[in-house]
């Protein structure tokens, strides 16, 4: 039963049948009561009119009451009514074959006399037939204390009522049954799309997420459900697809350097080498390790960002310090490449941010900018106040980003310049990670078109970061200068 009740269809059917049954029961009872009352009233009216007919034919002879002729045994409508007259002295004039015995008649007469008004009662005669009895004291002119008693059997009437009740009951039961079946069928029909969606969802594996629920349902709640479900499938499909692509890219990017390192190691160790050769190989390996470490680091951080777990600390970061330090870190690199590094900062200004994350972001942008700028040209780092907060522009004087690459520049493992990026150490994760960091700070990172030939990346940060989670250590600028946030 519990399992049966576990189904929505069964519960709906039962509820429907229950409500129907209750309504019909109320109606049945009302109908039956009204009917039996009307029938009873009609029977009593017949008794009353017969009584008045008989009373009209009663004569008084010296205080003795008598009826002209025999007392009638039925009404003009042919209903069998027995009549009796009980005189004050107790003598009884009655229709022949009177069903009620003399003592009962006497008792009824006494009651009517005491009452003064006609008495209507029901009782069973000695044969057990139910009867309605009407007892009426006759007026003074017609004997003194004489009572007219008329009675009729209501057995047939009650039998008819009982039959009606049975009929009503059977009919009601059939209606409830039919209603229940109808409800069962209807709910089944209504729930069919739901069952099909469920069946489909059960059958789906990650390999056929491209399938959609194809049901012809009107655009009602169910249509909405189907659409919602299909929308969810589409998103799931897309995210599985990107995960698959990402895994493929990541394994390629991680395996390549490992393969290279292994082959380098095996080749080198195959026979003795000169110290210079060893050094050369080790230096190469160091580069590979650094490249891999950077990539693993970026991948882990991206994974955290995807999981929504990249929650930046909120530490006061002085923008001039931050930008000058970034410039100082990159100046040697720029100098080596003959690239001019120009910086412009506000006199004062701070954001609440995670200094480590922000540093990764700016280092990514600086690295890109310097790499894409030819010698003698410049890279410009500029921080300035904007209406909503602070903006940092990193502008290079390189060849810019090809129009075709702009659309997916911030995706993972993207390289706008093919194999060249690998040579310079990029794995195509930097910009994706940078944007994830900017977003984690409630900010944004975009490639903006400022008309120049090179590329300009614009980082916008709100002045007051909404999600201040923790403040580490002393406020910025500890006297020891040893806050983890800042330094080199």
């Amino acid at each position, binding site marked *: 039963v519990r399992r049966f009740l576990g189904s929505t269809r069964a519960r709906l059917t039962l509820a429907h049948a229950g409500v129907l049954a209750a309504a019909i029961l109320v109606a049945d009872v009302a109908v039956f009561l009204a009917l039996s009352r009307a029938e009873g009233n009609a029977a009593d009216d017949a008794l009353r009119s017969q009584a008045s007919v008989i009373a009209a034919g009663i004569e008084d002879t010296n205080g003795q009451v008598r009826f002209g002729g025999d007392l009638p045994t039925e009404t003009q409508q042919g209903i069998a009514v027995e009549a009796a007259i009980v005189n004050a002295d107790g003598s009884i004039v009655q229709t022949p074959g009177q069903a009620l015995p003399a003592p009962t008649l006497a008792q009824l007469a006494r009651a009517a006399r005491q009452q003064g008004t006609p008495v209507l009662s029901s009782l069973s005669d000695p044969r057990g037939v139910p009867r309605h009895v009407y007892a009426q004291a006759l007026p003074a002119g017609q004997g003194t204390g004489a009572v007219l008693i008329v009675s009729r059997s209501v057995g047939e009437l009650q039998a008819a009522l009982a039959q009606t009740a049975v009929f009503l009951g059977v009919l009601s039961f059939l209606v409830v049954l039919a209603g229940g079946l109808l409800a069962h069928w209807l709910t089944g029909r209504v729930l069919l799309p739901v069952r099909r969606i469920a069946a489909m969802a059960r059958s789906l594996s990650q390999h056929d997420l491209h399938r959609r629920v194809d049901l012809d349902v009107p655009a009602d709640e169910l249509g909405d459900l189907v659409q919602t479900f299909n929308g969810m499938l589409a998103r799931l499909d897309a995210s599985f697809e990107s995960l698959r692509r990402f895994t493929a890219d990541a394994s390629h990017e991680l395996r390549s350097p490992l393969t290279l390192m292994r082959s380098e190691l095996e080749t080198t160790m195959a026979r003795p080498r000169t110290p210079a050769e060893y050094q050369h190989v080790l230096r190469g390996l160091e580069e590979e390790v650094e490249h891999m470490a950077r990539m693993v680091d970026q991948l882990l951080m991206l994974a955290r960002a995807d999981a929504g777990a990249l929650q930046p600390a909120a530490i006061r970061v002085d923008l001039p*310090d931050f930008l000058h330090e970034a410039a100082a870190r990159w100046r040697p690199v720029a100098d080596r490449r003959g690239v001019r590094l120009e910086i412009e900062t506000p006199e004062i200004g701070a954001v609440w941010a995670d200094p480590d994350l922000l540093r990764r972001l700016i280092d990514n942008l600086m690295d890109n900018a310097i790499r894409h700028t030819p010698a003698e040209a410049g890279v410009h780092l500029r921080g300035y106040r904007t209406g909503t907060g602070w903006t940092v522009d990193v502008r290079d004087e390189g060849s810019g980003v090809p129009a075709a690459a702009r659309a997916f520049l911030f995706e993972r493992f993207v390289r706008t310049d093919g194999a060249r990026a690998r040579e310079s150490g990029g794995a195509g994760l930097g910009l994706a990670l940078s944007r994830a960091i900017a977003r984690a700070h409630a900010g944004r990172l975009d490639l903006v078109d400022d008309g120049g030939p090179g590329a300009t990346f614009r980082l916008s940060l709100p002045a007051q970061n909404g999600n201040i989670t923790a403040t580490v250590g002393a406020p910025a600028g500890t006297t*020891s200068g040893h806050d983890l946030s800042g330094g080199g």
Partner: protein
Amino acid sequence: VRVLLIEDDRRLAASVQRGLGESGLAVDVVREGDEGLAALLSTPYDVIVLDVMLPGKDGFVISRELRQQKVSTPVLMLTARDAVDDRVRGLEAGADDYMVKPFAMRELIARIRALARRHLPDRTAVLTAGTIVLDTAAHTLRVDGRQVELTAKEFAILDFFLHHPGRLLSRTQIIEHVWDYDFDGGHNLVEVYMGRLRRKLTAAGAGDPFVTVRGSGYRLEPKP
């Protein structure tokens, strides 16, 4: 400089020991916290390098215990987890610096040196020189009573000079004090910051309190 390395990974410990040793640092290695505490009681160390992921007591617990036992030796934590929570926990547990694995040996050495060199600053709350009044507790600079806004690093540099009035401070000293350790490009940074400080102080009416000693560094000589 004597370093205690608390690290349970034998290979990493040996590698770090060799790397630090070749740079002239004396390194002792222990594999867990209680051993480390015992070593600290018998030998004075300049810096403790502490791995977070250790069998038994982890690095946070050890660091906290050290501080409870009034061991003030600077602690540098090593961890493979760089989540913000971990960083905050490490600092709350009394660590002085924090490095995420994999780290570059050069940077580890530089940071250990910086920690070893580090001395607790004078706790004087208010430092003055001429019209310059630096409140280190409230983190404010006033010149002739007017507040001047400084960035954290500008403040740290001025603070450093006010602690050593009249003394010649080299660029390297300034870098190591303010940015923890020397790095490429640091000298240029010092020049940038001296320029900013001079500009702000002059604009505030304190004149230029710094004297540049060519090739050596700077000296604070406030105008009366």
